[in-house]
């Protein structure tokens, strides 16, 4: 890097193909690189309400240095996809991008900012701490492979929910959940449906999910009555019985989620962990609930 000043340019000035290329270049040496093609990045931007006018690419002259994106929803903002090209790291690019995004969030009157960082990504974690973010908790990324034998469905009254009924159940009070699991994400996503389960002892609950061509993902769920593990085991048994050949990918499940034992019993494995971090406090309208209530 030269001494020339780092410029921050809105991502809206780049095509989705250019942005994809920049993003992938920043991740080539990551342990979990998570590359994307343009279609996948475009869906990411749409599903997570990424604001292209307030997301930034860092440049120095004609040289691209890094990228960072800002999601914007009512009362909150989210920092995501922060990455710096390997050969320009340790030169203040990450900090410049972060400061730029925080300024943009402030311009939009968002004083509550959320992010997640992969556990053991020490440089990024340290940068976020220095900028005033605090740790909220650990999040799990879980997978369930489709090669597992489909479970026998638990005896229960299981009702399939179409999109509108499913979204109605998730409600709009998930604003303090990790960004990927908030109501808006499900509202933005295609192919969302759900399942309501009532067991013989009247315990009951629901699961809302996105079914893609090859995967099940974006779960929202709640135990209305009864033991969360029992209810979760019941809805998972019906889901995986119905879709035995789909890979399942769950992001950002809180480690203290009382439904978790059912996921492990159903064959889910931990892929990796993230740390959730917040700057500022959620405004009152983002009603805080316990993880058990929020799922």
């Amino acid at each position, binding site marked *: 890097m030269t001494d020339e000043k780092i410029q921050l340019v809105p991502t809206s000035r780049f095509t989705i193909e250019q942005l994809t290329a920049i993003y992938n270049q920043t991740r080539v040496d990551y342990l979990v690189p998570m590359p994307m093609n343009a279609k996948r990045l475009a869906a990411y931007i749409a599903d997570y309400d990424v604001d292209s006018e307030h997301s930034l690419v860092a440049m120095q002259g004609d040289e691209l240095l890094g990228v960072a994106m800002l999601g914007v929803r009512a009362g909150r903002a989210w920092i995501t996809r922060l990455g710096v090209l390997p050969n320009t790291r340790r030169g203040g690019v990450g900090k410049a991008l972060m400061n730029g995004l925080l300024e943009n969030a402030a311009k939009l009157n968002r004083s509550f900012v959320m992010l997640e960082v992969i556990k053991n990504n020490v440089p990024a974690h340290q940068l976020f701490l220095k900028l005033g973010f605090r740790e909220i908790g650990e999040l799990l990324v879980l997978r369930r492979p489709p090669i597992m034998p489909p479970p026998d469905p638990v005896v229960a009254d299981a009702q399939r929910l179409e999109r509108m009924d499913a979204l109605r159940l998730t409600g709009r009070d998930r604003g303090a959940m990790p960004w990927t699991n908030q109501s808006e994400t499900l509202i933005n996503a295609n192919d969302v449906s759900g399942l309501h389960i009532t067991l013989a002892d009247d315990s009951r609950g629901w699961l809302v999910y996105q079914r893609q061509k*090859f995967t099940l993902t974006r779960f929202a769920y709640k135990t209305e009555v009864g033991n969360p593990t029992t209810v979760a085991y019941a809805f998972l048994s019906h889901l995986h019985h119905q879709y035995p050949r789909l890979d399942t990918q769950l992001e950002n499940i809180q480690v203290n989620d009382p439904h978790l034992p059912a996921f492990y019993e159903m064959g889910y494995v931990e892929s990796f962990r993230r740390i959730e971090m917040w700057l500022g406090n959620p405004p009152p309208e983002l009603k805080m609930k316990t993880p058990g209530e929020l799922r």
Partner: protein
Amino acid sequence: MIKILLVEDMPDTVELVRRTLSPHGYEIVHAPDAETGLEMALEHRPDLILLDLGLPDYDGQTLAGWLRAEPTLAGMPIIAFTAWPQETARKMVESYGCNGYIQKPILKVKDFVDQVDSFLKTG
């Protein structure tokens, strides 16, 4: 000639694998993403699939799941090719029905060739 399907999105890695294995009598066919990987596995019926876990459309585990669910590809060795920490790689390999994994980056050419040979023999 032994045919290996390399599913990998990084051109430098593709080139390195090609240069490393071709002189040892392997034919390398290449897919840059998971959907192409599935198509090429069905079309080419390779002797072994070397599978990057971080792909741009669907990830490598998802592709491993599709391949394992495809009856006409039963028994085909699938080897994960990844820079993930060993414990994570081992867990994913076991869960998704891969036969094993080879750690990235390729540090010693001979070791890499030996690992590929070994997986071809044991399946």
